[in-house]
């Protein structure tokens, strides 16, 4: 199936969305294509975008092979396959995942800082989702 952009879904209005959802099936939302995930994840730092850009830029300089929104979204999703439904739950999911990263030694070094893979990838996806790099 050809992936539909989220913008296309949103502009079609609620009724159209319902029809569309029925047509393509619920699997669409349970799978969540990476481009949609990237949109959601890049909003986590909406209030702290400038700070996330600073870190994300430096991470991507060290890890150019991850400089792709879909790749990062897939890595951030991990085995979960989906993200929680609302912002509060997404935040909690990410917080737990960050702590698991430390527990399981999924640590990366950026300018000497020992950070969780999840938090730097989150910054990186924010960086790749627009705005000038810092």
């Amino acid at each position, binding site marked *: 199936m050809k992936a539909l952009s989220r913008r296309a879904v949103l502009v079609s209005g609620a009724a159209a969305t319902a029809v569309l959802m029925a047509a393509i099936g619920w699997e669409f939302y349970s799978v969540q294509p990476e481009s949609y995930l990237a949109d959601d994840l890049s909003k*986590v*730092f909406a*209030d*702290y975008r*400038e*700070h*996330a850009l*600073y*870190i994300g830029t*430096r991470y991507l300089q060290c890890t150019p092979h991850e400089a792709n929104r879909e790749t990062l979204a897939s890595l951030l999703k991990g085995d979960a396959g989906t993200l929680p439904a609302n912002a509060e739950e997404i*935040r909690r999911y*990410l*917080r737990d995942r*960050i*702590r698991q*990263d*430390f*527990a399981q*030694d999924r*640590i990366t*070094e950026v*300018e*000497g*800082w*020992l*950070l*969780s893979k999840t*938090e730097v990838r*989150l*910054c990186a996806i924010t960086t790749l989702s627009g705005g000038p790099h810092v």
Partner: protein
Amino acid sequence: MFNDARQLSQNQTLEADICIIGGGPAGITIACEMIGTRNKVILLESGGLELEPETQDLYRGQNIGRHYYDLDICRLRFFGGTSNHWGGWIRRLQPMDFVKRPWVPYSGWPITHDDLIPYWERAEVLMGFGPIGFDALALSKGYDGIKPFPFDPKHMHAEATHWRRPMHFGEKFGPELKKADNVTVMLHANALQIDRSGSGTAVDRVRYATLDGKKGLVRARTFILATGGIENARMLMISNIGNDHDLVGRFFMDHPQPAAGMLVTIDDTDKRWTPYAYPHPDRHSENVPAGCMVPSPEVQEREGMINNAVNFVFVPSYFSKGFSSLRRAMGKAESYDQSTATFGENLRNVISDIDGIARDTSHRLRSGRTVLQMMEIGVLAQQAPNPNSRITLDSESDPFGLPRLKMHWQLTDFDRHGVIRTVHHVARELGRMGLARIKLEFKDWAPSFDYGYHHMGTTRMSNDPKMGVVDSNCRVHGMANLYVAGSSVFPTSGNSPPTYNLVALALRMADHLKMNA
């Protein structure tokens, strides 16, 4: 009583049951323990009651290894010895320090942690600070019961280091010794050489001299060498005693204390940080313990590293330009430059946002409130015993014609690895609990950094004469009546300051001598 060797007759022979060479913390402790016993004790002290330049100069030597303090600066040669510049930090060696660890070369003491517990307790009384604890509970008690961080004991635990106004052993115990009928402190008596008896398996006498030309002998049944972690080895080398296996002077250790990086807290209002932010601006430092974090024995084994501790230093105005300028002026600019501060500030905002807290952190910082936002990380490191880290005799002589010392201090890649992995593990554990992020700045041993003035290992303890100079009672192997007191007998250094620990060992020796001397 006190006497002065300069007032003695030329070539006078003194008789005693026990002759203690050296009036530092170890020698004074043993002398005090002998007060009121049936033993007649003579304590030979090179200096007087105050620092005298000519006597202090006897400590001069050469550093030919990595940078080390001048040998006549890092030690003091007058009554009270090096306790006269003791920093006052107190913490016990940990059980792990006594264990033979296959991944730490030359590790293992011939005594256990439990063996020393009664002597530590006595040392606390002797040193006048009463019973204190060193675990997380003791740390919590020191701060009105603040809850400790919930470390997973499989990963890490907290330790309390206490600070007390540094005690100068000479000032503290001098009056007691002055009153003692059976103990004579002989000032300005420089031990020159320890002579064996005819059989070669015991000491017969010690030769002494004063800087103004008096000479004499001390004969005794038992001799205790207590001249400090470096000088003990020099005296044995000069006397050609205890060195059948070329161990004397080797395994010299200090406690490297590199600035290893920095820490940014996620919640600067979390009061549980208070015991670790040292010196805390709102607390008086005396009688309040400082917290440090120590990776668990399991982690040490898995990582193949030695038992290091991490402590934190509160930085009140980390981001201020004034502070940065000051640090730059102090020659540490590379660790505190603007890019580091900027990254830390950005990181702090991001990690705080993830946890949904502390959104107004920057406002609080600017309001002038005390916030535990950023701290420097120091590693209280130990080095693995290394036979090539050593002191030897020099060709240059002192005014008595005795060879001065050459110090060849070495640190290894194993030691470097230990520092890095320790910081890494603390970062891991603090991240797991959602408490902080850490920047690791330590990459390798810098040409110069802080270390403890802690001289250890040069007459190490082992029950195997091929592995140690003294046995588990600190008696020199092959010598019936010669003992060594002080931190030179430590086979490994632990990450604890040595003074309190060597006093405990001295008390243990005193008990042994009372039973056997």
